[in-house]
């Protein structure tokens, strides 16, 4: 079921449309075989979330996604008791008379009153194995990280009133962070760490061929050459792979067959998301980069 070597992992990701470099494939392979959570950090738009999706599809597992936000707490992330039904059960017991305290306690803290949220859902032994994606962990506040420790270390969750719920098959766990704040060392220590960098030109061309197959080969090579040069500029926010793919699609929609300064100026907003950056590149700078990109592809 799980891949047996780095090559097999590479092939698995490739089959899902994800072009990974050797380092990433090795890390994913190790995370799968050592059964450790995978902590991916990197700039936005470098394909961190995509890895979890591709893994879920490739391994034939369900994807359980927990999107983090400030104030995310146990009742939204792990589990919640269904208070209304619990109160109802108490009233019913009273109505039937002769309340036995011990029996009542075990009755209203039964599994049926426990509402599963993503974390519990991912380790529920009664459900098929899962890939758990904890997305943008840096958006949650620090107290939330403490909730995760038990799940990440032992793939289990302790509900004080109920007991410990343990995964039958440990889930594949992928955590991502955009580094808008530093995630605590306690989390890092339990995970395999990988920094997802911008791809090099060769890999970016492969990605583009996969994700935007209807873009002409020459245009796509020029696009990659342009974006690679753009990443060397002094910009506030460098374009990620996601932006490259969007831009290729945008140029294809405009029926472009070759990179032209005018079209680049008009569509720069797809690539750069800050007005200062656009103002800096638009015009002469863009024309220079376009001619460089054209020259490098022709060479």
């Amino acid at each position: 079921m799980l891949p047996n070597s780095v090559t097999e992992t590479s092939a698995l990701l490739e089959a899902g449309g994800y072009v990974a470099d050797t380092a990433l494939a090795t890390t994913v392979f190790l995370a799968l075989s050592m059964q450790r959570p995978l902590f991916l950090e990197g700039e936005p738009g470098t394909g961190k979330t995509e890895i979890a999706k591709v893994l879920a599809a490739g391994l034939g597992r369900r994807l359980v996604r927990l999107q983090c936000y400030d104030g995310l707490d146990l009742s939204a992330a792990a589990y919640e008791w269904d208070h209304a039904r619990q109160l109802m059960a108490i009233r019913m017991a009273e109505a039937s008379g002769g309340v036995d305290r011990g029996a009542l306690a075990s009755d209203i803290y039964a599994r049926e009153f426990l509402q599963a949220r993503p974390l519990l859902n991912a380790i529920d032994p009664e459900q098929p194995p899962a890939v758990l994606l904890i997305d943008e962990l840096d958006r949650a506040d620090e107290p939330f990280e403490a909730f995760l420790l038990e799940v990440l270390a032992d793939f289990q969750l302790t509900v004080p009133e109920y007991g410990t719920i343990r995964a039958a098959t440990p889930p594949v766990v992928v955590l991502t962070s955009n580094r808008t704040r530093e995630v605590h060392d306690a989390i890092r220590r339990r995970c395999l760490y990988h920094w997802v960098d911008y791809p090099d030109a060769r890999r970016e061309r492969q990605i583009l061929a996969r994700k935007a197959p209807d873009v002409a080969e020459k245009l796509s090579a020029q696009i990659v050459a342009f974006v690679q040069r753009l990443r060397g500029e002094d910009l506030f926010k460098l374009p990620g792979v996601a932006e490259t793919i969007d831009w290729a699609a945008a140029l294809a929609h405009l029926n472009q067959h070759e990179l032209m300064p005018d079209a680049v100026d008009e569509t720069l907003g797809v690539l750069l998301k800050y007005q200062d950056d656009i103002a800096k590149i638009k015009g002469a700078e863009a024309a220079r980069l376009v001619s460089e990109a054209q020259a490098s592809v022709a060479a």
Partner: protein
Amino acid sequence: MNFAPAQPPRGGRIAGNVMHFARLLRRAGLPVGPADMLAAQQALTLVQIGDRQQVRTALRTTMVHRHEHQDLFEQAFLMFWRDPEGSKTALAMAMMEGMPEAPPPERAPAGSRRLAEAMTNPRPPREKPDERREEIEAVMTVSERERLQQMDFEAMSAADIANAKAEIRRLVLPMDLRRTRRRRPDPGGAHVDLRATIRASLRQGGEILELARSRKVTRPPPLVVLCDISGSMSRYAQILLHFLHAVANDRDRVTTFLFGTRLSNITRQLRHRDPEVAFQMVSHAVPDWSGGTRIGEALALFNRNWARRVLGQGAVVLLVTDGLDRDGAVGLAENMERLHKSCSRLIWLNPLLRWDGFEPKSQGIRAMLPHVDEFRPVHNLASLRALIETLSRPLSRQAMEQWRLAS
């Protein structure tokens, strides 16, 4: 329960090498624990040991937990796994060992004054020589070239440290009580905690006699301090560092930067509990004490490399500078604007304004004033107390407007 496969690490030799490598990384300052080492050994049994790239990734992914440690790891890897028997390894080890800086021998070690104090009878603290007798003009000029020099701080007495701790408790920054979305049990709270209510009711056989309540927790937002250490600010360096150290150890989520001609993040150095050790570490880490100022450039660097990492979660920025810029305020307004827009509150503390009626005529000041939420001039920044009082004072909107109009 542990799901890790119970497979013993292969070969004693590789295990030994991993151990030596981990030791090397630790000496170079990377936090590599025994658990990381075991994970690395396990990882090596899984990858193809002949493939250098795979081995490197296996070691990196298990032993490195932060992006900033990656470069150091790559260097260590190149050195260590080149020739395990050769003399180069020994050389590399020696080089890595040399990396953590040793304190200069001519300086008394931190805390020695306090140790000496403890050995003798307590005496009233010595009168400090008054350093504030320079000409005003000397302060106003901005030095021309980048002067790199280290700062020497006066030793602190035990009483000084106790004082600083007591003073910092009085600090109340604007917007300090930020509501979080977490709750805490509180009988007078506004929210009914059903889970706790039901649990309590079971003691009475399911009869609800009392509602358990909770309230929202408030906590101060993250604080980011950007502090100017150029020549014109050097007279305040001592007090400012006392303040920064006290603040960094008093509350969590404080990030501290110093800037003159460069930008240095000194958060980690300041975390040291002992102020003297912390100051020694800071003065080694920062090369541009009392040089010129390039505020615009420093802010641009901060905006590009740090803003997105430290200004999340509603951070408050405290900018400490006199606004005297070496580069004639090039790029200052743009970068101030961006900084202002990426934090929830920008407070500017200006220690230059020591007499009433000073008009903000400097280019730098005029470029900065429109982009701050709060402007706090200090007339006499002689003590930590004055600094804390200035920051804790409620904001006077009228004064703020007057400053804006004057500029």
